[in-house]
């Protein structure tokens, strides 16, 4: 059996007052790019800090590449590259000093790799940290995480603050890392930013994992918005009791409703009626994603 890159069992960090992370069961396979999505304050950074052994769980366990995330945290970090949500202040140190410092602590960093990443991201290591813009600070974080070619990349909102061109370059780095055998666990609150690199996503809300799915599955459970224009008066009663149909409304010749699942009952209901126009609007993945953010029962949706 292949060792999971990340495995958590009932992982919990309870800050009290309903804040924290609760009973997280998650497994990320080696070589996978896993998107960890949720709104601000959902528990993404808490999960990542638990995986990095920075904070102690109040329950459950986490393992990274077969090693205990807390008990063997030093060994774990030899294998991991990490970008925190916000890069700390380094004041008057120059980018090259910071890269040199972390490169020396990690070991196994060669200047060719540093040069390659800085050129691709157009990062000037000659500037003092305090002179860096938000985007440049994020680029420095990317350099620190990628420069030693880690087996696992744990990235907390890595694209925030990056312009679209640098985001594309970052995603290329991610894909190259996975092509070389690395696993990537990245968090974001914007699905569209990460959907083209992730194979699976987990959606977290209020400290609980509410959905883990492949991207295609998210599409399959999509809700369509259907609009039908009749030649004569609208006939909403044709659809009111159809399975998966909700929110039926009519206005003059037009009927609109939302439909989930198969389209066949709708097509059958229209048989023999004079339909002038029919439109089915595909929701964006973003809209599907947002349905998991809305208030809903706490239990996980599967």
């Amino acid at each position: 059996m292949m060792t999971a890159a990340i495995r958590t069992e009932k992982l919990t960090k309870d800050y009290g007052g309903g804040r924290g992370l609760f009973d997280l069961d998650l497994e990320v396979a080696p070589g996978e790019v896993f998107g960890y999505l949720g709104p601000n304050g959902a528990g993404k950074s808490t999960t990542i800090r638990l995986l990095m052994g920075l904070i102690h769980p109040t329950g459950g366990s986490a393992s990274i590449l077969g090693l205990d995330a807390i008990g063997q945290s030093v060994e774990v970090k030899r294998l991991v590259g990490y970008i925190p949500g916000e890069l700390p202040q380094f004041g008057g140190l120059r980018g090259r000093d910071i890269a040199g410092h972390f490169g020396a602590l990690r070991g196994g960093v060669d200047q060719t790799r540093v040069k390659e990443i800085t050129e691709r991201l157009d990062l000037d290591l000659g500037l003092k940290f305090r002179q860096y813009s938000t985007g440049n600070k994020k680029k420095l974080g990317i350099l620190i995480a990628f420069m030693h070619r880690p087996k696992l990349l744990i990235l907390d909102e890595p694209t925030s603050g990056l312009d679209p061109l640098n985001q594309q370059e970052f995603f290329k780095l991610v894909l190259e890392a996975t092509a070389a055998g690395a696993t990537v666990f990245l968090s974001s609150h914007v699905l569209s930013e990460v959907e083209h690199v992730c194979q699976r996503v987990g959606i977290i809300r209020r400290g609980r994992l509410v959905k883990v799915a492949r991207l295609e599955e998210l599409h399959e459970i999509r809700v369509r918005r259907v609009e039908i224009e009749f030649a004569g008066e609208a006939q909403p009663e044709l659809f009111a009791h159809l399975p998966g149909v909700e929110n039926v409304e009519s206005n003059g010749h037009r009927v609109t409703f939302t439909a989930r699942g198969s389209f066949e009952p709708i097509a059958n209901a229209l048989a023999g009626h004079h339909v002038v126009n029919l439109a089915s609007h595909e929701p964006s993945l973003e809209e599907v994603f947002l349905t998991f953010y809305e208030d809903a029962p706490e239990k996980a949706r599967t």
Partner: protein
Amino acid sequence: MIGWMAWRLHRRGLIGFSVGGFLISFFYGAAFLQAAGTTAQSQAAFGRSVTLVAKQFAFLIPLPVHPETLGGYEQYKWLAGAIIIMMLWAGLAGVGVGRADEDRGLTQEWIASGVSRPRLLLARSAAFGLVLLVACLASVVGIAAIAPLVHQDPDVAGEILKALSMTAGLFAGYAIALLIAQFPAERQTATALGVGALVLLLVVNGIADTIEAASWIGVISPFHWMERTTSAAPGGTFDLGATVGLAVAALALIGAAIPIFLRRDIGSGLFNWGRRTGAAVRVASGNVLLRLPFTEGLWEQRVGLTVWVVSTLLLGSLMISVTKSVADALFADPALAVVFRGAAPGPTYAALLGFIWFGIALLLLAGYAVVQVSRWSAQDQDGRVELLLSAPISRTRVVIERALEFAVASLLIVVGGYIGVAATAPRSGLNLDAGHLFTASALLWPFALAFGGLGVALVSRWPRIAVPFLAAFAVVEYILGDLAPLFKLPDWVANLSVFHLYGNPVVGSVSWTPALSMTLVFLAGFAAALVLMRQRDVSSA
């Protein structure tokens, strides 16, 4: 709204300096009673001794007026010490309003919400002026509170007028720093120039006070104009013109800062010299000092640490060079000799050197411990420790490297001080025992380590409160060490103060028990830090 926000932003300084001002006045009043005694004769002798000592430092601090009275003594202590610290605070506040708010994004938020730049600067300045007034008046409350307990009757009206003069002078210092902060490209440069200018003005005032031919240059220093008001001492005067002049000068300087603030870019100075241009650097530094966190820490603070070492060296040299003249003057008067033999028993020169230099060195090292802990605390809170721990570094190693960093840095400062005194001693005419001088200097290191050990422990578990806690601990320890002999407290109580524990090893036989005790405090703090760091959650959030 902007006024309220501006006031809120100064609340920590307001509370700290108001409480501090009250306590300083209160405890100096208590110390006055113990040191000067209750008879007119002993108080007169005490006043003469204070004047004699002050004359040796006239290049830095003003001469006292009637130091044999509570009002005169408190006024002297304030102008000789506390006012300098408050002036540094005012300078930092000026740079803070001028530039640091921009680094924090506050200025941008206010301007984006429709507040004009002149209004922003005026509101922030008015709020700080009010904060200064409250803090200065708190010192009057401290004197009024202690006066009945020491059977003295200070002139409260005179004290209030003195507080007004101090407020105006400090406000002028704030305005100088605010104006200077508008020019440099970087905030750090602005801080160095703003605070440096105030230190320079302090020295200028000292030169004007001591060299008659150069007395005219004193007019540019706010210290000069503050010293003209002596209303807290009996028979002293309130210089209305000087006080109003300081306030008007402050307003003029703030007014001058406004058009520059309007002209320059936010986040940048009027002059942008020194900004790096040229080809981009694409390789990491190969500096060997960056390979370990503790050497990286030393490298990062190399400029600041050099300033600490050189300042300690120069101050040690300066103090040892004035010790003989101070001692000769003091011990020429039998009444004063009695007072000082009580405070610093032992061979005349050595005892006074221990009193003057090593007392200051202890304060410097305690101050360095607070500064270092403040640095670690900031690193912890803004996520630097989190990033460090994302490398294959254990928490134990973080604590060990912090302890090493502090040990090496404090040792460098101690060595700097020793070089200063050892180099000057042969020419000072003090005829000091070289072995004692070395031992006394060497024992400064375990003293520093004791504070460092406590600081490492505190910051490992409670990074947010470590700095105020250690600073408060240092103040309590100092006051306890200062007052224990005066109040004749039992040894076991006095030895709770690390300052008292250090003693005066430059005279008499050396006891290694204090050194051992201080080293044990360091080791206990270090061990506690190891445990506490392993248990806590590390998170910048």
